[in-house]
């Protein structure tokens, strides 16, 4: 790009229109209306380059990895390992060995709870989570506590949905062995001060896992800067395919941990008396992995990197502010989650109207949102609501999408008005 072009760079809104063109699914109509897809926190849509990467893998490269001596196997292995390098660069890990491919955030957390947990957590130890965790960052720790006799501690949040750091400070002590905390809340949009949280945990010798499922698509993550011990995220929320995710772990910790699953690829030598395990990252990747998924995730990260997370974050932030301002104009509309630091999520309830009714009526106008408890039932209980309606934004979301959402909400209110 020349200097002049750079200076004449159009505003974000124009970019979003252009990026939108990369996503073929958004061109369709739903219920006779143009699709307004605002369920991106559940899963994002895929750009054509990602769809093409998966198709091209199966039409040209498909082969098993790490074992064949033939040409296709070498090609597939190279592409697979190149994708690992892309992930490493994307989150600035120190080494490719620290990038473990799993099915998704849920499996990443379960891997740590089972492998690290079994080895390091004992009766009387304490595990700290927050009120705003997704069930996938609650239940694995509850299971670990049941198995070991450890105790689960929960950091409260305030009415805006903000992590209460002072309360956290009171909860963490020398018994704290592990802290598992969400980076960006899927139900509220709150961005947690994970760097500070990690720093305090480390002072007590506790290890920290960050659930980054909702963070990675919306803000630049640097695991070395955060100094987290583990970081988990899913491909499908960052424009990649479903069924693949990433566990980052510090090499020293991963090396000391027992394998999570046994099978092919994770061993060095097997006899009936004893098996020895492969080096990182393969020790944690038993069986033929989702090869197409990994390679396609690499294509998705290339796509996001070419646009730049800073540009994406700026665009989404502007949309969130626009939507928040629009919400303030709607009588009886209450936002659930009004943290000062927030990303891409507008969770709300309408007075006297159940979110499920809101969701159905919006769907009729082509507006796709999520309604329900967002796999965060303790959080719903904290806000004394059974469920919320949630609109969530992506890089291709536009002000027109937000306008369609609010036109839909007006229709909901009109239908329910006496």
């Amino acid at each position, binding site marked *: 790009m020349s200097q002049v072009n750079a200076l004449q760079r159009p505003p974000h809104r124009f970019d979003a229109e252009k990026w939108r063109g990369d996503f073929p699914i958004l061109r369709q109509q739903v219920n006779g209306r143009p699709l307004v897809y605002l369920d991106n926190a559940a899963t994002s849509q895929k750009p054509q380059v990602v769809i093409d990467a998966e198709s091209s893998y199966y039409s040209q490269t498909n082969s098993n990895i790490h074992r064949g001596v033939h040409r296709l196997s070498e090609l597939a292995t190279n592409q697979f390992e190149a994708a690992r390098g892309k992930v490493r660069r994307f989150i600035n890990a120190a080494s490719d060995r620290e990038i473990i491919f799993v099915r998704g955030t849920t499996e990443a957390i379960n891997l740590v709870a089972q492998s690290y947990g079994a080895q390091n957590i004992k009766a009387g130890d304490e595990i700290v989570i927050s009120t705003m965790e997704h069930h996938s960052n609650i239940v694995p720790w509850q299971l670990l506590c049941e198995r070991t006799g450890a105790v689960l501690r929960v950091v409260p949040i305030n009415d805006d949905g903000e992590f209460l750091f002072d309360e956290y400070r009171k909860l963490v002590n020398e018994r704290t062995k592990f802290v598992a905390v969400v980076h960006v809340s899927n139900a509220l949009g709150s961005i947690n001060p994970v760097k500070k949280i990690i720093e305090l945990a480390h002072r007590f010798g506790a290890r920290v896992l960050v659930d980054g499922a909702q963070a990675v698509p919306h803000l630049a993550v640097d695991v070395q800067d955060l100094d987290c011990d583990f970081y988990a995220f899913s491909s499908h929320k960052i424009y990649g395919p479903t069924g693949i995710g990433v566990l980052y772990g510090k090499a020293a910790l991963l090396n000391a941990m027992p394998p999570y699953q046994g099978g092919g690829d994770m061993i060095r030598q097997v006899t009936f008396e004893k098996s020895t395990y492969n080096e990182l990252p393969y020790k944690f990747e038993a069986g033929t992995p989702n090869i197409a998924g990994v390679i396609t995730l690499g294509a998705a990260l290339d796509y996001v990197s070419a646009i730049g997370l800073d540009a994406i974050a700026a665009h989404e932030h502007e949309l969130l502010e626009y939507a928040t301002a629009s919400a303030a104009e709607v009588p009886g509309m209450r936002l659930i989650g009004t943290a000062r630091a927030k990303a891409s999520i507008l969770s709300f309830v309408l007075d006297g109207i*159940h979110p499920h009714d809101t969701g159905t*009526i919006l769907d*009729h106008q082509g507006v796709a949102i999520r309604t329900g*408890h967002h796999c965060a*039932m303790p959080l719903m209980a904290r806000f004394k609501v*059974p469920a919320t309606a949630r609109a969530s934004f992506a890089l291709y979301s536009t002000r027109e999408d937000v306008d369609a959402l609010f036109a839909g909400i007006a229709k909901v209110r009109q*239908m*329910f008005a006496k």
Partner: protein
Amino acid sequence: MSDLRELYQEVIFDHNRKPRNFRKLDPADRLAEGFNPLCGDQITVYVKFDQGVISDVSFEGSGCAISTASASLMTEALKGKTEAEARALFENFHSAVTNHGCAKCEDLGKLEVLAGVAEYPSRVKCATLAWHTFTAALDQKDQPVTTE
């Protein structure tokens, strides 16, 4: 897709705003709790019998417009029915809302306003929660029923 008004008929809004028989029955001959984990709807259904006939039926709880209206309409429809008649009515209603068509639509009476739900598979559970809870009460199930 059908018109939204076929799902949200005026009768449904009316019963959502002013649910009938929305109270606790104490003592009840039978009661059960129901829960829809998908949307957080919860309901308790109370039943009283007099000489083999449902003399009173009521409900408490919270839910979406479809589930509240369905519970309210159900309580109106069940009064005066025997247990066998009530179960047959549920079967008929269940077919209507799951798109199998009702065997005897004329027997559904006001309940027919909920037939539009058949076009919305994700909402069928909203319409049937009260009924599943009612049959659980008849069966005296100790565990809360869920739609999942």
